[in-house]
């Protein structure tokens, strides 16, 4: 299968504001230290790591919310590493993002219908009401929800709106950054099942960032483990769980509390 993303020696550094002197520039701190991997079309790739491992930074570099400081990111043949915002605009339609916290990523003053229509309007799409209606159907929300506000919805429903906004433009690629970590197990299961179905129905390519290996195990065919800005393991998920090679992967696996009192931590 052709690769949708080709990432070579990706480096990204940001200003370290905690070390900024009162006057003058903050020192730069390297978050991503030379990552290389590919994402084939139609793949569901999990990206895991502890806090500060650089997984969200990597995600934001993939959808160019952050500009890499070195290496290259190629999306379907286009080098988007340093592309300017106007040049990126036509491509943005093809890669979308679902955010972690649906409450803070949805405008509280807009109705659900307006929220989902927003990217359609920005990209000057036609037949917007039809597309909004179709998208609501895809994520399993009743049409009447178009006139509700985010605060009237439950956490799981809100995250469905976040998903709807991301798929409204019929993108090729979706980045999901910790999208279920704020949800209860039951809504989490519903949202993940929905995502799994959408990937199959709409032929999406998905990068799923999570700190929860149990979720990755269920959803992703391939898993990339990040630790301190470097890839420590990049293998098919089943192999990785059967026989974790990197010590950090083993540590992550052993730290997951299984719902089973037979697993004892002492």
């Amino acid at each position, binding site marked *: 299968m052709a690769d949708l993303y080709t990432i070579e020696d990706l480096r990204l550094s940001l200003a370290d504001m*905690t070390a900024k002197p009162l006057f003058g520039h903050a020192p730069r701190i390297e978050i991503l230290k030379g990552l290389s991997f590919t994402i084939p079309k139609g793949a569901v790739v999990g990206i895991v790591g*502890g*806090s500060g491992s650089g997984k969200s930074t990597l995600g934001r570099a993939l959808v160019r919310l952050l500009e890499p400081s070195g290496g290259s990111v190629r999306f379907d043949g286009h080098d988007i590493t340093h592309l300017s915002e106007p040049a990126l605009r036509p491509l943005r339609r093809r890669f979308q993002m679902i955010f972690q916290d649906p409450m803070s990523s949805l405008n509280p003053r807009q109705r659900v219908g307006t929220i989902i229509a927003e990217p359609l309007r920005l990209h000057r799409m036609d037949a917007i009401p039809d597309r909004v209606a179709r998208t609501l159907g895809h994520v399993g929300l009743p049409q009447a929800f178009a006139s509700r506000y985010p605060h009237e919805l439950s*956490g799981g429903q809100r995250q469905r709106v976040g998903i709807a906004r991301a798929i409204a433009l019929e993108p090729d690629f979706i980045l999901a950054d910790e999208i279920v970590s704020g949800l*209860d*197990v*039951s*809504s*989490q*299961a*519903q949202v*993940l*099942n929905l995502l799994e179905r959408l990937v199959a129905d709409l032929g999406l390519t998905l990068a799923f960032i999570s*700190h*929860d*290996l*149990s*979720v990755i*195990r*269920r959803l992703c065919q391939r898993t990339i483990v990040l630790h301190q800005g470097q890839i420590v393991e990049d293998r098919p998920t*089943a192999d990785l*769980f059967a026989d974790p090679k990197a010590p950090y992967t083993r*540590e*992550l*696996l*052993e*730290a*997951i*509390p*299984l*719902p*089973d*009192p037979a*697993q*004892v*931590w*002492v």
Partner: protein
Amino acid sequence: MSFLSIRNLSVRLKNGPPLLRRVSLDVAAGEVRGLVGESGAGKSMIGKAVLGILPPSVQITEGEIFLDGTDLLRLPPKESRRRIGASCALIPQDPLTALNPSHRIGPQITDRLVDILGWTRANADARARDLLAEVQIADPDRVLRSYPHELSGGMRQRILIASAFAAEPKLIVADEPTTALDVTVQKQILRLIAGMQARHGTALLFVTHDLGVVSKVCQRLSVLYSGLVVEDSTVPEFFASPSHAYSAALLAATPKYTDPDAGLHPVPEAVVNAVRAEVAAFDRGPAHG
């Protein structure tokens, strides 16, 4: 009698719906009880009621909260606050908002000991150093002089644990103490809390939505739905065979990496409807069923 004993506690929003529906539970000295439920089930509300920190928008409509045999709700507010302050502590969810960003760590642990419990400053400082060592902070003196922003999330949570144990409380309410942490740090923190709790013989009310966490640190658990306790079991009983269909469905929804096909089954609609009907029947019930 257990150190903490809650009997038929009902709490409602003023002029609004009930939040807790005749909740009863016990936590004995040295015991850890998990409080499990989806968000909005009322699990944090129980902890807040025990600590006397319910928001002003809610009121207790009936029930008793016995702390060491005395019903807190029958005491004058000042006396009940004194008792809670002397014997209870909280480990909060978010270690960043729980610490004052403009004060050094040291006084944030010791001020309460000095100002409220009347310790001498020297004793309080020594106690803070010992506690930080007990929560495995390598360099207590440096940390005591630090500001919260200079420390990592795991480090801040250790400080709050140390602070909770500072005055040798008999009861600690831990309100989702590891939700903000990543799994490897969560493991260290849970071991730390369980270890401290066992050494000090503290009664611990552990609020969480993660059944995996419950199976590691708790001996008993209460499962709540809409403020109604639907299950009260020991941990081995619960994980072997949950007694209520709703709590069984919650367990089935919990992902398990060792079994890729297990988990991610949402609570079935029929089960949700059944437990909702149970809540409705409870609200209608003559003398509360």
